[in-house]
């Protein structure tokens, strides 16, 4: 299973994501931002960092990069795309997932370990997570405060678009509406989340819960390729 990790200038979790894909049994491939080519990747990860310096607004410039046209086509074909942290911001700016990520309510960068409830384990991104399990992952961002107008939040919830929510005891680190930490598009193939599963893929690093998400991706990719 070939998993592409996009490298924007300013990406800084690309190497971590490539490593986690390998740990999950996938075949990682780095995708350079200037090439509109996925090099055969069946799944695409947009990693964390500060793509293009996050100038103007987090994620806003990255969506115009050449590789994103290939990512868009991939998503349009029903290919899987996972955006982590800055990658989530890029997906939101590109309109591939709903919502906007505002400055944290604290107005500060927030790094901490959080707990997540997994609202759906029937997605290609979460299917390896045992139902009812909460995940322990780190967040590290200045702009992760998920926002949608109330009526659109209701609509998002109604179509089961919320995949991850911040949970007790640490709770919501950034003021996100309805504790939303991650969402999925209507088709169920593009997912974005603020916490970092790739940094929590080994017990030595404090948690291996993130590996479940990586395994979901790698495994589900195989299934869809076979289909």
């Amino acid at each position, binding site marked *: 299973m070939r998993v592409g990790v996009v490298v924007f200038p300013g990406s800084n979790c690309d*190497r971590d994501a490539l490593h*986690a894909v390998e740990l999950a049994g996938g075949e990682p491939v780095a995708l350079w931002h200037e090439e509109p080519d996925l090099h055969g990747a069946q799944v695409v990860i947009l990693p964390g960092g500060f793509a*293009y*310096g996050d100038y103007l607004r987090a994620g806003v410039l990255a969506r115009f990069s050449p590789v994103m046209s290939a990512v868009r086509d991939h998503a349009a074909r029903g290919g899987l795309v996972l955006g982590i942290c800055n990658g989530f911001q890029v997906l939101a700016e590109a309109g591939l997932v709903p919502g906007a990520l505002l400055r944290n309510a604290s107005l500060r960068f927030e790094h901490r370990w959080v707990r997540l409830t997994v609202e759906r384990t029937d997605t290609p991104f979460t299917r390896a997570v045992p139902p009812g399990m909460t995940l322990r992952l780190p967040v*590290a961002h200045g702009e992760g405060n998920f926002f949608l107008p109330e009526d659109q939040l209701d609509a998002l919830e109604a179509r089961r678009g919320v995949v991850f929510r911040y949970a007790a005891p640490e709770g919501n680190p950034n003021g996100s509406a309805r504790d939303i930490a991650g969402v999925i598009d209507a088709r169920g193939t593009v997912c974005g989340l603020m916490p970092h599963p790739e940094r929590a893929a080994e017990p030595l690093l404090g948690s291996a819960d993130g590996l479940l998400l990586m395994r979901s991706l790698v495994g589900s990719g195989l299934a869809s390729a076979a289909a």
Partner: protein
Amino acid sequence: MTAVQAAVAAPPPIPLHRLLGLTDDELAAIGARLGRAPNDLELAMFSVMWSEHCSYKSSRPWLRRLPGAGRGVVAGQGENAGVISIGDGLAVAFKLESHNHPSAVEPYQGAATGVGGILRDICTMGARPIAVLDALKFGAPDDEQTRHLVRGVVRGVGGYGNCVGVPTVGGELVFDPSYRDNPLVNVMAVGLLEERHLTRAAAPGPGNAVVLFGSATGRDGIGGASVLASATFDETSAAKRPTVQVGDPFAEKLLIEASLELIAAGLVDGLQDLGAAGITCAVSETADRAGTGIVVDLDAIPRRETGMTPAEVMISESQERMLAIVRPARVAEVAAVCRRWGITATVIGRVTDDGAIRVVAGGLDGSGRPAAGAAELARIPAAALTSDAIVYQRETRPPVHERGAPAPGVRQELIESEPGLPERGMDPGAVLLALLGHPNLCSRAWVTTQYDETVGADTVEAGEHGAAVLRVRGTPWGLVMATDACAAVAALDPYLGAAMAVAECTRNVAVTGARPLGVTDCLNYGDPGRPEAFWAFTEAIRGVADACRALEMPVTGGNVSFYNESARGAIAPTAQIGVVGLLEDIDRRVGPVFRSAGDVIGLLGSTTPGLAGSVYAGLAGASLDDRPPGLDLARERDLQAVLIEAAAQGLLASAQDVSGGGLAVALAEGCIWSGLGAQLDLAVGSTPALELFGEAPSRAVVSTTPKAWERLADLAAGRGVPLERMGRVGGDRLRIRLIGLAATGAAEERGAGVADDVDVPVGALQHAWAAGLPRALGEAA
């Protein structure tokens, strides 16, 4: 008024060299080296290179006294960073550096560019930066100016490191009134490299191209080093804001990736980052290290502003720039790598064999010689700017108020026998809670949550529980790192404070089970022209040197920061120490957190107690008769050897260094972080504060399973290190029963109902510790 009268009335013009901060004697010394008077451009280049910050003109003779040799050292003092081999072809690069004055003037940019500069230093050695630690010192936290500085500096460190993608994994935060107008921002960076990629900051090979890559050169940070770091602070400091460099971590990230790619591809023969004194420093240092010269093609240097003078271009401290020495045949490949990362790379000169730094306007020809009609604007021997810069033998004088302190290795009489030490009646539990909430001891979460600690996916332990641990991918090893200073003790005795900082920092690494590999130091002192301030510096050199020799630690480099004074006086003399250690088996690392109820708790090590310089003494009011604790370096070495061996044998459930707040705080931390209580007996003399809260070095709180206790006791006895059994982990309270003389009379004096023992619920300890910093800074928790 006649013309003659006007000329007499007008003040004589200030000569240029004085405007640039050079003395008349220095001007004469420059003339002697050139054999003629310097022109204005040359004078500007000398002024920055002969600044204290770049030339180390006061400290150089003393820095030679630091031991540099040691096991595995492959690059040491004088390089951009120390490098120590750790085996399997891998090596670790590390260095501490100050950015004090820029941070005082503009806290966000000052701190941010401090991180940027040290990351580039690590990178030029061929290492990928893997961790940052920040040692921050501020005035009292209830002061609005201090709060402004704290907020700005913390945001600056985080803003830069988080964006570049290097985790900030530890450090130090200390509040002391002496730092009010002159905060200290010392940043340590650690990198990992394949030894075969070790790169030097030298310019070998006459004919080689000199390539500048990264950001364009602007007017920002003109004379930042000489103006800011090399003079005492006064009211005009705010007007110096334009001399502070402006950081761009995004540009730095690209610069790091491009540099590492160039090194891995073997495309550069030398690499130097541009920091203080900009291009002038980079070309003169690289040429001098290689015994070559460089001719600079001034017109080729990319600028971000028009109308810059040659001097401005040559000394600008614009950030995020690198200088590479490249063989002519590889210039195109270097340019291609840089282009891929969106970075401009420009050939700005050639390496020559004449040992001179020449600056040419009008371009170079194809062979690197000045083109026809070109003008030579400056010609200075490279050595005159660097290794042959002026050196001062500064006067030293111990200040009269300093007390005699025990020299390491000399057994001092126990403090109880000192006449006049007041008995301090107290409720030790209340004192413990006050200490846990003290701004210098409480939780650093308010700071550490603003730092990305986990980017890079190698962080095993970070933050506030002691030394940081990172795994080395593809090996069973861990790298352990810490930074410490003992400025409160150094304020009483700069020798002892500096030696203690080395002892504490190596101990912090050793308690995890790691073998300390080497030391980097950042020495922060006052005006070197003031004999008392310079004396403190020389005492610190002696202290660091003695401690490093006794503990067999090489000093692989660091930084000296003088002029840390304001109108209110000098800072506490601060020898900031950084240490990196190697864990052979990361699965055997030992943490400071109690593990299981029923484990036996002991105190390993012993030393001469003392209260002076402790946080407790600060709270209780120090007595003139107090002494700082003693330091016995032989005992320290033995303690660390036992800790490392015990960890390797898997005997320790936990180990925690006894330092700030003393034994009671070390025990409380084991409880706070585990949620487990502990029940202990503590033998005390006439002054229980000494045993509970004294900060005597060379001790560690350890816990083991009952089964492992005997083996640990045997191991300790074999090295002659005392191990005192204190009690057990368990329950939900920290109970320390004081056994001995202490209780007599004290309880009656204070009235009934006040216990002499410590007996506090763990939840109360946790609350006091967690709430301290937000409360001290006036921030909502």
